């Protein structure tokens, strides 16, 4: 049955919903309150790594299964997805951290120092070895969001910027179903939603080339260096139990940049392109979900936490299945 659907919020969750539901044959309008695309989206501050295996270190086991499905959906959609795997390293005195990480995760192999140097020549001599997660992938957040936006339009979704919630919920335009993907902006409807601040730095270096994300284990500062191409590197990310959207603190900048320097001293000569901070919406178990209300006329898709890109496609498929025949899934609450 073809429905008229309004999606609220053009972050990664809303874009995946609009794309998937438009492709399923529904009439889709996507409303975004910001005038400029992605200006208000927490997704813009993503790494972005599709890392279901590494996330399993702390996330519930269920998320690994769903995450693998998310990776498959991205691979099928996005030709620019970089499927070079990912690396986990630790300094010699923190080898215990590496062993612990290896015990808690699957899908990795251990690289000796020379095997690491083969894959990432610029890391030669930097580490005793690494864990290699061959099936993980990464992408640049702004490029991927723009791609999703273009694809959703191509699939027939109407996307309107500068129009907030409420514009489509009354009068003749009332949609059959409203899918609310507004993240923290929907918190008044979702009392157990909280914000978790994340900060990242973008730097540009012509001195070092990496072809896959490097996660640097440290007892105090978990750190990722994600190559976005053209010398651009995303260094992230802090996880602070705060909803403050403001500028990054010097403490966080020191931690992130110090970590990047520990991965490779050549990063000392990199240019700082941007500091940025976003607030990730999260439920108490840090698992994203779709929550059906008002007899199915309103569906909240929220709580992406660190998993918005990974599980965006899974949540979209979940909602599409529910609208098709009432099927529920692991991430859907009726």
């Amino acid at each position, binding site marked *: 049955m073809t429905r008229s659907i309004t999606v609220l919020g053009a972050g990664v969750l809303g874009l995946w919903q609009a794309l998937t539901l438009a492709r399923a044959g529904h009439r889709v309008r996507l409303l975004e309150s910001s005038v400029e695309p992605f200006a208000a989206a927490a997704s813009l501050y993503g790494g972005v790594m599709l890392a279901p295996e590494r996330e399993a270190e702390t996330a519930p086991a269920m998320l690994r299964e769903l995450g693998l499905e998310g990776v498959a959906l991205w691979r099928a959609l996005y030709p620019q997805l970089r499927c070079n795997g990912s690396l986990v390293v630790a300094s010699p005195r923190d080898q215990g951290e590496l062993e612990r990480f290896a015990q*808690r995760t699957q899908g990795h192999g251990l690289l000796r120092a020379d095997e690491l140097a083969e894959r990432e020549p610029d890391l030669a001599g930097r580490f005793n070895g690494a864990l290699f997660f061959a099936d993980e992938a990464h992408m640049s957040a702004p490029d991927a969001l723009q791609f999703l936006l273009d694809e959703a339009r191509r699939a027939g979704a109407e996307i309107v910027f500068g129009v907030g919630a409420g514009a489509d919920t009354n009068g003749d335009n009332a949609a059959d179903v409203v899918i609310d993907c507004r993240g923290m902006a929907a918190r008044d409807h979702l009392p157990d939603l*909280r914000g978790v*601040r994340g900060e990242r730095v973008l730097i540009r270096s012509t001195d070092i080339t990496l072809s896959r994300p490097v996660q640097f284990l440290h*007892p*105090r500062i978990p750190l990722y260096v994600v190559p976005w191409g053209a010398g651009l590197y995303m260094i992230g990310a802090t996880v*602070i*139990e*705060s909803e403050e959207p403001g500028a990054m603190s010097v403490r966080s900048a020191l931690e992130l940049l110090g970590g990047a320097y520990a991965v490779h001293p050549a990063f000392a000569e990199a240019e700082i392109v941007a500091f940025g901070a976003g607030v990730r919406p999260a439920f*108490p*178990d840090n698992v994203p979900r779709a929550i059906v209300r008002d007899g199915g006329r309103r569906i909240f898709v929220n709580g992406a936490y660190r998993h918005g890109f990974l599980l965006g496609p899974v949540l979209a498929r979940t909602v599409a299945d529910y609208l098709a025949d009432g099927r529920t899934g692991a991430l859907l609450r009726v």
Partner: protein
Amino acid sequence: MNAPSTGMDIKAGAERSALTLYGEALSSRMLIGTAQYPSPQVLAEAVEASGAGIVTVSLRREQARGRTGERFLQLIADLGVRVLPNTAGCHTVKEAITTAHMARELFDTPWLKLEVIANDDTLQPDVFGLVEAASALCADGFNVLPYTTEDLSVADRLLAAGCRVLMPWGAPIGTGRGLANPYALRSMRAYFPDVPLIIDAGIGAPSHAAQAMEMGFDGVLLNTAIAKAADPVRMARAFAQAIEAGRSAYEAGLMGVRDMAQPSTPVVGTPFFDLRTDGA
């Protein structure tokens, strides 16, 4: 997660001697930190499984400004146990005092775990700054629980400053090495028989916690060993059992060690001459 409340099983055991800190009797000798858990939900389940009477919370500036950390802090408050804000990560007296005041306002409590860190690598307390900050905060009406070393003269100064509880380290924060200097900790226990002493930091395994309790320490404060376990809820329960066992053993009176073996079966009725070696 199938996490039945185990605090009850433990409490149902032998009679418990209560731990009293700043005039408040606590139901458990376990104090746990709230950082590094996979999610607030796992944290809540772990706290419940531990039966801990106090949880510590470190406050970041980002949480205090405009009360933007309120949702998370509300989750902590909802745990229903006493909240002990701490000044984790503060390197100067001024920073620690500022954080203490923010914490008192946010949590509406005079209780404070005071940390003044000297060195980022060892996270060793700066004992000079600690004494200075403790003096100012005790005078200002805080109930200060200082994170300190096993040094006796520093302990004396902290007590003189007005602290009524001391929290010596087991080992540096987050190392999980257990009691690095049991001899010094034993001396401290003997030197301050009437001051509540809580081992804070460095605990990695339930056996470490049990050891501290057997030595007569009044409680144990830990975080990483539970939060970073593969199953934090089960680990919380394991620590609760170890702390209870160690305390009971201390109160029951541990046997001393001997150099010579002594049979545990009575020897009455057996001949005490070995006839074969009797020279006749």
